[in-house]
């Protein structure tokens, strides 16, 4: 069975990422509980694999709504829309579980139009969007449109949709959250795994949870994942392009070819330099060649730094030409044997340290609320706060006040966290009781 189906979240709270979008979705669903909502339809849009469809099904489950949908296999055109969707929008429906509850008594049917941006208008059939608009105007049931491309959906006959619908964006899912879901699946499937692989998968999928889970499944056939299996994963098209691009740069015989190759790689110079830096020593075996190449690379990095400081992206072209052309003309030897390239180590580490950085940010957020200053200020004085936390009394007081979690506390004071947390809980309880008495 496909893991993306097997582990499809049942409840909205189990859908990872996009907490704001989910909250907005819940608010909209709640507005239907008191009759017909002001905004009768919602557009969920965002990149593939960000949880749009999962959220819809989880929402329907949480609110106990039945879903009316068009199967992907259904031929979709105006007629079908009219026949099925319109019928569901203005009539009561018969429950599949042998119960009949009218919508007045709260039984809503959620009408879902998946891939709304491209499926209803093709081959000269231009009435699709207008029909959707018409249906939204008269519907008495909630409607959700799902689209990858918001612009595609709302252009032309779809401009009206912008006004009629509430639009909710789904963003790429954070790498850390993807790692956590991958870990969860590994645990459920009893798979022994090297965590580095999970980080790598999560990084590579670029916020697309579905493809991350598919990748995981594709290498989990014998219940063990090791780091060398990374090379077994069918590399995504994009990465393959980077590898060939790299090879072409390294092996280019003149400045022009190398620069042209670099331009064709779909990576910004500050990422591309990491790839070159990682793989340069694998390709150039001669020490003198390497020295010269790295000299150019360092000059290129200087330009990248200037871009960053001055926020002037015109300098990118210098950086790009130095790292590609400069590296290419540095070699005096020719290298013909096959080289296996690696993913930049630095990117791997950054994504791994992300958890750590995130905890730090959470702590800063909590402190900034009572200290009346920015998160950045808190981060500056975090070492001092840590020092203050060496005193039990202070640590307990603040833990109870700020509701610090165990991971956050462990970050601050290490092993003492558990003891402090327990005592903080005591204080919280006492505070609550005190409140009760105050009331009397």
């Amino acid at each position, binding site marked *: 069975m496909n893991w993306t189906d097997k582990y499809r979240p049942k409840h909205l709270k189990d859908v990872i990422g996009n907490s704001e979008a989910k909250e907005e979705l819940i608010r909209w669903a709640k507005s239907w509980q008191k009759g017909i909502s002001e905004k009768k339809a919602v557009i969920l849009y965002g990149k593939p694999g960000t949880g749009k469809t999962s959220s819809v099904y989880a929402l329907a489950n949480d609110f106990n709504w039945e879903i009316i949908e068009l199967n992907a296999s259904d031929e979709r055109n105006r007629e079908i829309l009219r026949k099925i969707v319109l*019928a569901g929008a203005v009539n009561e429906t018969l429950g*599949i579980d*042998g119960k*009949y509850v009218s919508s*007045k008594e709260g039984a809503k049917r959620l009408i879902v139009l998946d891939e709304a941006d491209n499926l209803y208008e093709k081959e000269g059939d231009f009435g699709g969007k207008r029909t959707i608009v018409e249906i939204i105007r008269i519907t*008495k049931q909630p409607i959700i449109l799902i689209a990858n491309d918001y612009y595609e959906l709302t252009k032309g006959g779809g401009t009206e949709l912008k006004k009629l619908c509430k639009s909710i964006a789904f963003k790429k899912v954070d790498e850390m959250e993807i790692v956590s879901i991958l870990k969860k699946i590994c645990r459920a499937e009893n798979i022994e795994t090297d965590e580095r692989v999970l980080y790598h998968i999560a990084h590579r999928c670029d916020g697309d949870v579905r493809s991350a889970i598919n990748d995981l499944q594709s290498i989990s056939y014998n219940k063990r994942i090791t780091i060398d299996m990374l090379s077994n994963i069918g590399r995504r098209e994009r990465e393959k392009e980077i590898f060939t691009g790299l090879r072409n740069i390294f092996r280019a015989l003149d400045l022009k070819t190398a620069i042209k190759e670099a331009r064709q790689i779909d990576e910004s110079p500050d990422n591309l330099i990491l790839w070159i830096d990682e793989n340069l020593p694998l390709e150039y075996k001669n020490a003198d060649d390497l020295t010269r190449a790295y000299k150019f690379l360092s000059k290129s990095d200087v330009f990248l730094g200037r871009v960053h400081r001055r926020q002037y992206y015109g300098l990118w072209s210098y950086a790009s030409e130095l790292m590609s052309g400069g590296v290419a003309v540095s070699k005096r030897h020719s290298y013909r044997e096959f080289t296996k390239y690696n993913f930049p180590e630095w990117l791997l580490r950054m994504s791994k340290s992300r958890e750590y950085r995130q905890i730090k940010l959470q702590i800063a957020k909590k402190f900034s609320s009572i200290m009346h200053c920015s998160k950045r200020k808190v981060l500056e004085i975090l070492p001092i706060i840590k020092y203050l936390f060496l005193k039990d009394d202070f640590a307990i007081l603040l833990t109870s006040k700020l509701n610090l979690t165990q991971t956050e506390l462990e970050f601050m004071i290490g092993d003492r966290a558990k003891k402090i947390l327990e005592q903080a809980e005591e204080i919280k309880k006492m505070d609550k009781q005190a409140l009760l008495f105050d009331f009397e």
Partner: protein
Amino acid sequence: MFQGKLKAGFTKVLVDAISVLVDETKFKISPDGIYGRTFDPAHVGMIDFKIKKEIFEEYECKEETEIGVDLEKLKDIIKIATNEEIIEFQHDKSEGRLIVTKGNITRKLSLLDTSEMRDTKAPSLDLPAEIVAPIAEIAQAIKVAESFSDHVTLMADSEGFQMIAEGDSDVLELKLSKDKLYNLKCEEKVKSMFPLDYFSKMIKMAGSKSDEITINLGNDYPIKLSFEIAEGNIKIIYLLAPRIES
């Protein structure tokens, strides 16, 4: 293993009755006959059908199986037969096909995967009124109403049965008093409104094969339409959900 011979006329009735709501369906074949139940994609209408083995010329089925059929494909071959002609069915389980034979013509049609077709429970409905009515006039009235309305209101009380269709400015009424009905069981007044397109298709279907129809009605509640053909050997029940009251 299922094998059977049935008059084309009866096959047509069954296929047409199901086609009112869906293009494909799951048939359950049991030692006693064939039955099934399915919703239309919008879940507004439902059909429950039963065809007893007694009506078959020959019928052989050892254990219950289910097959998913694309009704359009089945229609193709039945269409070329006259009502009295015998159609032969054979389920080829290993190939996943239904072999349909009419005279010397054999159509092997590939079956659909039934695992995706959910089993549906019939909603248990509490419908206080039961009306057994001649169908011809209802069908005529609907034909008129279709030109200007998209919904129809059905009412019944102890005096009789009434149907009203309203357009923007036009109204159509059909009144059948108690003495014009075959049977009327109704103590309190009931009234519900339904989508005309569904109702019309169901009534037209019933009207083309049967003279009378049993209507079970409630208040803002689904309706049940049932009729029988061939001395009760084919039974069709339609359920239809009402319009949402705003």
